[in-house]
């Protein structure tokens, strides 16, 4: 590594005042004798101060509300903890779950499942549902689903609507389907949203 690369790599630590005394001394000596690094440090200090000023400016324009902490604290109450369960239930019962999901959801703009998903397939959220709480208990249900059903809940799928695919459905605590992971080798098509 050249001295200049080493010096520029120390930019952040220099600003944070995190450099050891010997490092800081080396840096000062190098910068004093290197016009390129001197210019780079000057540019950096200018941009750095502008960045911080921009955050402060936006904060001045929209000051934080008073009482946010007082509003938050009472909401922090213990909720019962349940373990995540993976169950395999018969296709007929599973179909009822996703059918309920279809019935409950508004018709939403279609979402594309990307053509090249990394293996193994990932869960893809059903579009425009309220976000699943990361701590929420979920159930994974494996089932066979008609492509037409996937299309109905908002996915864009370039496949025969009558085709049956094997999938796993992530069901939230309210019993509604939240996401689907297709296990079959199916031709998803489209450009994404």
């Amino acid at each position, binding site marked *: 590594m050249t001295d200049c690369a080493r010096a520029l790599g120390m930019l952040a630590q220099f600003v*944070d005042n995190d450099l050891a005394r010997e490092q800081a001394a080396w840096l000062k000596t190098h910068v004093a004798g290197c016009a390129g690094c001197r210019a780079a440090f000057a540019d950096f200090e200018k941009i750095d101060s502008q960045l911080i000023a921009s955050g402060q400016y936006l904060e001045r324009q929209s000051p934080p509300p008073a009482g946010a902490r007082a509003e938050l604290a009472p909401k922090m109450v213990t909720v019962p903890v349940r373990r995540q369960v993976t169950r395999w239930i018969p296709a007929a019962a599973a179909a009822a779950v996703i059918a309920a999901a279809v019935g409950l959801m508004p018709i939403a703009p279609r979402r594309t499942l990307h053509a090249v998903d990394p293996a193994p397939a990932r869960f893809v959220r059903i579009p*425009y549902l309220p*976000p699943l709480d990361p701590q929420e208990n979920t159930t994974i249900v494996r089932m066979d689903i008609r492509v037409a059903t996937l299309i109905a809940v908002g996915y864009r799928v370039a496949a025969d609507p009558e085709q049956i695919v094997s999938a796993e459905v992530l069901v939230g605590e309210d019993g509604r389907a939240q996401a689907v992971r297709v296990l079959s080798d199916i031709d998803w098509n489209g450009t994404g949203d």
Partner: protein
Amino acid sequence: MADGETADGTKAAASDEPREEALRWFDELRDPLRRYLLCTGASAADADDAIQETFLKLYRHLERKGDRSNLYGWVFQVARNYLRDVRRSARRQRTVQLDEAMTRGGGPADPQLGPEHCALDGERVRRLRAAVAKLPEQQRECMLLRSAGLRYREIAEILGIHTASVGTLVHRATARLTEELS
């Protein structure tokens, strides 16, 4: 970060109640997190909603003894995810675009500053934010987190990269911004 605490979650090694701990994190991170969210283009209302949701989730996370390896980064990630979901939601339209966020405000919030001063500030900020928006993702995140007033050591932690790598990242981002703004 307060004395004797680290960003990796060891803060609560001698923790009492999850609620108290979550509120301590709130006290420490609310302002930088809010500035960060505003800098990403969130409206003040969405930023405040995101903060409430994030710290409620943090409380649950602590209560359930979730992973504490990088709570600092966890908080920013959860807030980012919340905003992303809000932006995707067809039911909510309050989030504004980056350029809009940079120029909004109407009048000066600081009574000590005159309208010309604020207009100048607004224009400068707008140009800077537009330039930041063009950076590659990791450089952009780094600059946005710096706008929030975080130290580079903390930024490295949130981004999950080594502190030394931030130097290189910062240098590249700075060079691009200088060129863009010149």
